[in-house]
Each structure stands twice: as structure tokens, then as C-alpha cells.
């Protein structure tokens, strides 16, 4: 199979906007995608990620802005003229066609000869490793198999860009992990640019070259998985990326990139400043996994719950002013027990208060 067709150098979303009546689903989304890149659109339900994907596919028209493929403007083209491959959330396999005819549909629509279609269908089925089920109807296949057919159908036409709309959300946990690895393998093999929509952080972190975090129709942060995991750009994104602990406080001391913050606990908390200017009000965020019992830790709290998760215990606690804390501990604690918690300074992120709102 041809490695990433010389389809394009870059795909540019230029202030792409889409309204539904009074509701602004997408607000001036701008993004540049390079050839072969795997981009994840990550965000909670209603953030506009599926809308963005549908606009890219041509299933929705733009209210404002443009989409450029190199120097060609494509947002005025219909779906059937864009030539992108798309994998739908519920697969959308044609129920009345067997696997081969499903996979070959796009090729037939583009007028490819029967012989060539058969060859490319074989190749696509090989890539997704589904050769044996060729003659079956979609209704006779399992969820994972249907998923593979949907992918094969999208890549058979050798599109410059593959769009995926939460393709794994209907699979059970084990299958999801398997298919994730498959998608990664296929992307490495074919090298086509891919835009992948998901609300699952782990998927985004595991698959993407770059992640675009969307919230309320706006881009909040674009970065590599590592950047997004370690340094979310603001408190909002941090909370979405799993920094469940968030406390308000006041900066009391600065030391270069580090700050000390008083947030109403037994002691001041040390953390990394992320764009904090001066000594004003801030929000501290910490991942539950980084907050652990420490005899000299600044957070004094009373345990309110304990949950066993196999690899460790995860607990909840209440601080002196009613703040909610989420922490991790090797040995379980009892509800009602008083505890002191602490986190490494380089894993504690401090943001200006109100950032990301």
C-alpha cells in the first residue's frame, strides 16, 4: 500500500467557526496539520470536537472561516469531493453489503476498475488483519471486527487525511486497548495524516503526535502528549487532564520558577509557576497520584473515603476550610483519620487565579 500519498503538505484550519442558531459550537478554530501527523481532538462532551470533524468531512458547512489543503480552499467542496476517509463512531457499515463490498465501496464510487478495486480491498483487509471474514455481512461480525472493516473502508481509497470520530467508544475495555494498538500500528504503516476525536485522555496521550484540547468550541491548548500531561497551559486544561486537586491561594514567596503559596492549610505549598505574575491570587493543581501521605506535608486533612484500585489505594479527604482532596496511598487509612499529605514541588502546578475561565 502506498505510504502516505503525496496528497498534501499541510492542512490548515483558518478560524473555522460553526453556529447552530444562537449556539456557537465552534469559535474560530485554527490549526495546522502536517502530512502524516496524528492529531487528537480532545475534550468533554459538547466541546465541539465532533462538530469540528464533521466540518472537516464536509458533512456540515462552516458559518465562518476556511479550510485549506495546501493552497486549495476545500470548505466549499461537498463531502464526496474532498476524498478524505472517515471512521464513524457507530462504524456506519452498509448492512446490506458484505465486508468486501463495504471496503470497496469508495473505490467503486471513484470509478476504479474492478480488478484494481479487488487488489486494493485485499490490501486494506490485510492491513487491518481481517482477511478471513470477507464474505460476511456486518451484522455477523463482532464489534472489534466491525471496527476493522470501518477502518479498512476508510483507508482503501488511500486518502490524504483520515478522520476518526471516537471509534473506540463502543468497545469494551480490553478490546479498546487492543484496537488502540492496532490503530497505532496502522498509522505507522501507512503514515496518512489522521485527525482523531476522543474524550478519553489515555487514548489521546497514547496515539497522538499532537493533542488539541477543546472546550466550549474553543482551542484551549495544542501540544505534544508530554507537554499536555506535564504542563497544561491553564487550570482548566489541567483539571481536564487529571489534576483533580485544585486549591485557591495567595503567593507568599517567589524563587525563580518556583512559588510558595498559602492556601489555608497547615503549611505553605511549593509549586511550579505557570505564567504567574507577581504575588496575586492563584490556583494550585496536583494529580491525585502525586499527593501522598507525608509527615511533614503542608496539607492537613481528615480522610472521608478510601477506594482500592489494585495498584494502590485512592482516597478522598476534607481540608480545614472544607477543601476536597484526592490522594493516593500504599497503605489504607480509616475514614475519620487525620492525615498530612504532600506532593513534590515539580509536580505541583500553580496558575494565576481565573486562568482558563
Amino acid at each position, binding site marked *: 500500500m502506498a505510504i502516505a500519498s503525496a496528497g498534501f503538505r499541510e492542512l490548515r484550519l483558518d478560524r473555522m467557526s460553526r453556529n447552530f442558531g444562537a449556539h456557537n459550537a465552534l469559535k474560530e478554530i485554527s490549526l495546522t496539520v502536517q502530512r502524516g501527523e496524528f492529531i487528537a481532538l480532545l475534550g468533554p462532551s459538547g466541546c465541539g470536537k465532533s462538530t469540528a470533524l464533521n466540518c472537516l468531512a464536509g458533512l456540515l458547512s462552516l458559518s465562518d472561516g476556511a479550510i485549506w489543503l495546501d493552497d486549495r480552499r476545500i470548505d466549499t467542496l461537498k*463531502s464526496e469531493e474532498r*476524498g478524505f476517509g472517515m471512521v464513524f463512531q*457507530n462504524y456506519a457499515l452498509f448492512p446490506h453489503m458484505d465486508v468486501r463490498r463495504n471496503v470497496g*465501496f*469508495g473505490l467503486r*464510487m471513484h470509478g476504479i476498475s474492478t480488478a484494481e478495486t479487488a487488489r486494493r480491498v485485499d490490501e486494506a483487509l490485510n492491513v487491518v488483519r481481517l482477511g478471513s471474514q470477507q464474505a460476511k455481512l456486518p*451484522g455477523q461480525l463482532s464489534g472489534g471486527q466491525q471496527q476493522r472493516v470501518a477502518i479498512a473502508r*476508510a483507508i482503501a481509497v488511500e486518502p490524504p487525511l483520515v478522520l476518526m470520530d471516537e471509534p473506540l*467508544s463502543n468497545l469494551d475495555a480490553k478490546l479498546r486497548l487492543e484496537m488502540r494498538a492496532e490503530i497505532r500500528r496502522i498509522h505507522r504503516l501507512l503514515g496518512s495524516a489522521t485527525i482523531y476525536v476522543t474524550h478519553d485522555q489515555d487514548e489521546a496521550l497514547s496515539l497522538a503526535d499532537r493533542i488539541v484540547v477543546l472546550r466550549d468550541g474553543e482551542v484551549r491548548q495544542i501540544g505534544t502528549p508530554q507537554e499536555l500531561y506535564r504542563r497544561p497551559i491553564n487550570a482548566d486544561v489541567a483539571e481536564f487532564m487529571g489534576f483533580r486537586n485544585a486549591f485557591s491561594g495567595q503567593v507568599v514567596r517567589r524563587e525563580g520558577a518556583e512559588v510558595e503559596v498559602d492556601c489555608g492549610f497547615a503549611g505553605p505549598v511549593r509549586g511550579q509557576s505557570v505564567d504567574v505574575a507577581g504575588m496575586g491570587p492563584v490556583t494550585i493543581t496536583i494529580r491525585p497520584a502525586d499527593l501522598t501521605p507525608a509527615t511533614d506535608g503542608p496539607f492537613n486533612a481528615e480522610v472521608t473515603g478510601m477506594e482500592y484500585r489494585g495498584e494502590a489505594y485512592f482516597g478522598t479527604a476534607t481540608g480545614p476550610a472544607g477543601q476536597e482532596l484526592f490522594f493516593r496511598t500504599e497503605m489504607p487509612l480509616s475514614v475519620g483519620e487525620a492525615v498530612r499529605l504532600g506532593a513534590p514541588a515539580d509536580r505541583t502546578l500553580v496558575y494565576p487565579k481565573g486562568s482558563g475561565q
Partner: protein
Amino acid sequence: MTPASSTTSPARPRRRTLADRGFDSVTLLLVPAALFVIVVFVYPFLFGLFLSFVPKEGGLFGNYIRFFSDPYMYGTIWLTLRLALPVTLLNIALSVPIAMQVRHLRRQRLLTTILVLPITLGTVLVAEGLLNYLGPQGWLNRTMILIGLIDRPIRLIQNYWGVFISLVITGFPFTFLLTLSMISGIDPALEQAAATLGARARNRFWHIVLPLIIPGLAVTFCLAFVDAFSVFPSAVLLGAPAGETRVISFAAAQAAFEQYDYSYASAIAMIMAVVQFGFVGAVLAVRGLFYKGPAGGGKG
């Protein structure tokens, strides 16, 4: 009371009670309705069948021979088919493209309500209305003359065309509403997927929508055809019941009420049933060749 079973003898399997097979007091609630249908539908039908073989004159098949040796009688089959088949095919042919357009409409309810009017009002009222409306002095002829389509009124009543039009007016809403609900039941993601794969609107219809609705259209055809084949009041009031719209149901009614020959009338009703179900059977057999499953796109 009885000691706990720590017996050494093997336990006997419990007899399957009626309740195990789903029959209990709740199922009994069915009995009045089921009995009613058997007594008032199945029995009369079988009785009519039996009666048709006991003619006033002639042997076992007396009625049937009489029917098929009289062109005035067996001709009714052709005359009725001549109306029912084209009307049904036309109604279905019109329903599909119109349903394809209307399905995206947001205010469908107004349209569907208006369309339900002819069915609610019934064939008699539609016949009476058309007698006025399609008459030589009626509004339709007047309008056509006014806009210059014709210079003299065309004859639309007391002939084939009046009945044809009335069958379309009462039949189209039925096939349309069924077709609309069928087409609306197709997962929109299927057409979207087809579009991303390069299929234009015509291809999307031909390759995706049509194959998925053909089974439903076949059933719609059967229901609509059976309805149209039973045409009665409009053929009498609006057509030429002694001539070109002498339909088979009219022949049956005549036999019953004008000749008081209930045996012959029953025979005609049986012949009517055979023709109707002959067509239905043929269509359903062909339908069996097509994919009949749900029109969704997969799990989820």
C-alpha cells in the same frame, strides 16, 4: 412440617406446568379477543368458502364455472387490476422521491396532517367531492381552461380517470407516510459514510437507500394493492360501474343484494381473495431475495 430433603432417593423432575410454557391467568386475558376473531372472522370466512362450493345450481364448482364463463364477470378481474396496479405503482413511485425530500423538513407534522385528511374522510366523501370538483363545471376544469391548458372541459368523472384520481387521493397518503417512516429509519450515518467515500446524491440513493427500503416497499405495495383492489364506492359513484369501472367488489355486492345469491357472492369474494393474495405472495417471494435486516450501521 415435611422434613428437609436429605433423601437418598434421586429427586424426580418437576412436571412442566402450563405456567412454564407461558400460560397463566394473564394469558387468559387473550381469550375473549381471540375467540371473537375466530368466531366473527375466521368462521365466516371458512363458511363463505364452504358456501361458495354449494351453488344454487350446478355441482361443486358451479359458482366458479359460472363466473369464469361469463365475460361480464371474469372481466371484472381485469378491470379492477387495470385500476389497482397502476394506481399502486404510481403511489409508490411518487412516495419515494417525495419522502426523500420531506424527511429533512422540520415541520413535517403540518404536511402529514393534511395528507391524512383524505384517509380520515374516507372514500365516499372523496368520491362526492371529486364529483363536484372534477365535473365539467368544476374548479379543476375551469382552472385548466383559464390557464390555457385545454379549451374544453375534459371528462374526468363517470369514467376510469375519476376512479383513478380518487384512488390516488386516498392511496398516496398511505404509501407516502409508510415510505417516509421507512426512509427516516435509515441511520443518517450510512449516507454520510457513503458521501465521504465519494458517492454523489444519486449514487447514495441507488446504492444505500434503495436497497435498504426495498423490503419495506414490497410490504407497502402489498398493503396498498390489496386496498386498491377492493375499491368499491368510488367505482360506483365516480366511475362507470356497468362499464369500464365494473370492479369485482361491485360484482360481489350485486350478487348479494340484487340477486340475493349469497353463495355466488361468497364465491366472488373468494376469487377476489385469491387474486389479492396471489399478488401479495408473489411480491413477498421476490422480497425474500433481498436484505431485510435493520438499517443501522453497526453496534452502538
